[in-house]
């Protein structure tokens, strides 16, 4: 194939693809498949959550009531805003406004750090309240609330595992966006070649999606019982 011998200077068409379209299709489809694996990855945790929520509903209510809903809701808003700027950034890359894209992605990064910061505050609160599963786990108000603290511990195990894994994805996402920003500032992308931007965007939105479900599941179980 002729294309394999011709270096297309600014957009790297890899040797084994016939043309840019094929390369773009392949990388986008690959990214979607990767998101499928991510869905199943979190799916295992959602399955565990569902089972234990059904079994220990009261304990889950008690656990969720220790959550700071305002922080959680703020974080939801922060993430959705970051997704918005991400989506706009991808759009800019698509139409060739590279500078605008860099700015929008920087905003995304700021929102990302904002999310992690708020999450960190929450984690710190749980930590000093001994709401970390393990030998030091304590749950006050269990007697009054009429729940078994050990079951609340399961709630917290899942809470830490799910939000922790999500936070890890956020950190990876910030790293990826940073990479795009640096490459974008150097002018690596153009309307003909912006798959990396689009794929990182997809990843970012996915991480947002997970949070959209984590928030109601972990924070909003119930306000009624026990107050």
């Amino acid at each position, binding site marked *: 194939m002729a294309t394999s011998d011709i270096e297309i200077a600014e957009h790297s068409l890899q040797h084994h693809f016939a043309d840019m379209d094929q390369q773009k299709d392949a990388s986008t489809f690959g990214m979607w498949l990767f998101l499928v694996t991510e869905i199943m990855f979190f799916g295992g945790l959602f399955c565990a959550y569902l089972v234990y929520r059904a079994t220990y509903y*009261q304990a889950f209510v008690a656990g969720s009531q220790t959550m700071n809903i305002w922080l959680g809701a703020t974080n939801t808003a922060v993430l959705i805003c970051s997704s918005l700027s991400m989506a706009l950034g991808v759009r800019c890359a698509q139409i060739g406004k590279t500078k605008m894209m860099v700015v929008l992605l920087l905003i995304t990064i700021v929102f990302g750090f904002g999310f992690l910061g708020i999450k960190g505050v929450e984690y710190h609160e749980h930590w000093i309240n001994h709401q970390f599963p393990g030998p030091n786990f304590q749950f006050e108000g269990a*007697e009054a609330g*009429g729940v*078994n603290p050990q*079951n609340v511990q399961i709630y917290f195990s899942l809470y830490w595992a799910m939000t922790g894994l999500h936070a890890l994805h956020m950190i990876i996402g910030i790293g990826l966006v940073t990479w795009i920003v640096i490459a974008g500032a150097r002018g690596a992308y153009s309307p003909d070649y912006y798959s990396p931007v689009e794929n990182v965007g997809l990843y970012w939105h996915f991480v947002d999606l997970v949070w959209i479900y984590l928030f109601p599941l972990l924070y909003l179980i119930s306000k009624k019982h026990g107050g």
Partner: protein
Amino acid sequence: MWKNLPLFPEQASSIAGQVDGLYFLLVAVSAFFTLLIFALVFVFAVKYRHSAHPKAQQIEGSLPLELTWTLIPLGISMIFFAWGALIYFQQARPPRGSMEVYAVAKQWMWKFEHETGQREINQLHVPVNRDVRVIMSSQDVIHSFYVPAFRIKADVLPGRFTSAWFRATKVGTYHLFCAEYCGTEHSGMIGEVVVMEPTAYQAWLANGGATGTMAANGKELFSQLGCATCHRFDTQGRGPNLTGVFGKPVQLDDGRTVMADENYIRESILNPQAKVVAGFKPIMPTFQGQVTEESLGALVSYVKSLAQPQQKAAGGTPQPAATSDSN
């Protein structure tokens, strides 16, 4: 020579014959299909070998044939499914009025306790021709109660009762294996089930050195642990009256209804707030860590006995006690 090479396990329970019946059908059908495939492959391979049949004849496929070998296996397998399911139902549902034995598995031994209070380790004595239900729980990891001669197996779980039942049909001594890998001495966690004539069994019970029936031990625990202060035998207690409860549906405070079975009693002792009876407050403390698996068995046995008609007098129950269908 053949004595050292047994090829088929003994049939010593009422269910064994049925399992074997299905097994033989499966063997027959499998043998038929295996031989069919082997024979076809062999015949084709010889008949159409390159030297005898140098030019292959192209055949694209055939929808009728495809449908045939899709639908026939499907039909046959549905027969297997139905038959297998019927046997499984019987294995899963113990008959009423079974004799009950409590088993506690731990790394790496089996502990049994008869309702009449006899305890034994790695041995289980049972009378022949009597339904026996083994109610099991584990102190540590997952084990599995397996008696090949009876064709029964059930995993023994920590934190929960499971049960297996059988009706031995032949006097003798049979292997009892742990069938779920449980650590270092997994293969040493074996024992035997001794099936005896009813009279011999009674004699064995008499020499068993029992210190009171399980229900009596449970009753003692019931007062030792202070259960009796709230679970009174009238309507004034802070906890529900337990008379006649066992084996009946219970209305919970969140509107659900659960069956008061062994696992419900267990959960109510260890995790009382999980399912609170309607009309009562979630004030009962947990007894987790305070009662052993053996004590749990005794307590369950006691609660069960409160639902037996002959125990009516002991409880002084205000309402008519459970009728004979309670257990």
